[in-house]
């Protein structure tokens, strides 16, 4: 059987008291099987080793840095340091690189195609200066700022028009020429006959450089 020894300190004058808590339950405190000093609530833990912690999703609080814009950076040498975020996160798109800009929508428009008893109208848009209606179901979308080349991507859809089951197809005719500043398009009847027909709404978004 191992033994438990309580030893006083010949140099000290204080009295150390081992006190039971206010409980009606039997408790056992098992001492660590090693030599050393127990860490108390007022200790700094500076001599502790072998601790592990996974801070993912947990707030890491700095006691020596202030300001909400700082972030903790792994420095590549096994240590971390607090870094200034350079004025905080930039939530605008103005600093996109040329490559980054090509990944975003450069222009979009939602317009009424002049259908039935409703005049044509641009309801909302970005980077669109106007839409020209050239004939029934035939439109040209004009960009405010032109694309760098004519190989951009237009994504189109249209809302059914005034009559039942009419204009439902939005397309780009191979007889029309796409330019960097204009995108000609049709809305037409579905089915085998692609007759141009006005759509109640046309939606178009454009991606490219």
């Amino acid at each position: 059987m191992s033994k438990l020894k309580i030893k006083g300190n010949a140099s000290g004058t204080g009295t150390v008291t081992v006190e039971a808590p206010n409980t009606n339950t039997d408790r056992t405190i098992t001492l660590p099987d090693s030599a050393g000093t127990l860490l108390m609530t007022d200790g700094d833990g500076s001599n502790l080793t072998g601790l592990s912690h996974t801070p993912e999703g947990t707030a890491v609080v700095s006691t020596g840095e202030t300001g909400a814009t700082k972030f903790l950076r792994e420095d590549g040498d096994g240590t971390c340091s607090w870094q200034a975020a350079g004025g905080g996160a930039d939530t605008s798109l103005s600093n996109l690189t040329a490559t980054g800009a090509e990944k975003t929508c450069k222009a979009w428009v939602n317009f009424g195609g002049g259908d039935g008893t409703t005049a044509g109208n641009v309801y909302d848009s970005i980077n669109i200066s106007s839409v020209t209606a050239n004939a029934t179901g035939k439109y040209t979308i004009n960009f405010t700022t032109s694309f760098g080349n004519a190989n951009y991507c237009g994504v189109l859809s249209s809302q059914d028009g005034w009559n039942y089951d009419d204009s439902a197809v939005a397309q780009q005719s191979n007889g029309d020429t796409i330019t960097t500043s204009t995108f000609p398009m049709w809305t037409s009847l579905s089915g085998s006959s692609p007759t141009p027909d006005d759509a109640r709404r046309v939606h178009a978004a454009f991606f490219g450089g």
Partner: protein
Amino acid sequence: MIIIFKQNSGIVGELWVAPEFMDTLTGTEEEKLIHIANKDLPTGTPYEITDADLSDRTFRNAWEYVAGSNELTSADLSADDLAKYNMTENK
């Protein structure tokens, strides 16, 4: 107000301005529309600024452009405007 313009097809064309773009321009409404006509219509296109009600779309392809007393002609954009719109040439 909208812009109607003459097309080679004989069918009258309509130019519907994007309000978001109009808001970026300065001047009177007519001056803004003239600027947009210069930007988005081929140079030399006859056009008129009108407040005509074009909501009845019946026989749309039979609508013809007839020159009125207020007819204007689209002009070239300035070099500065071309650069601003990333355009290499006038339409």
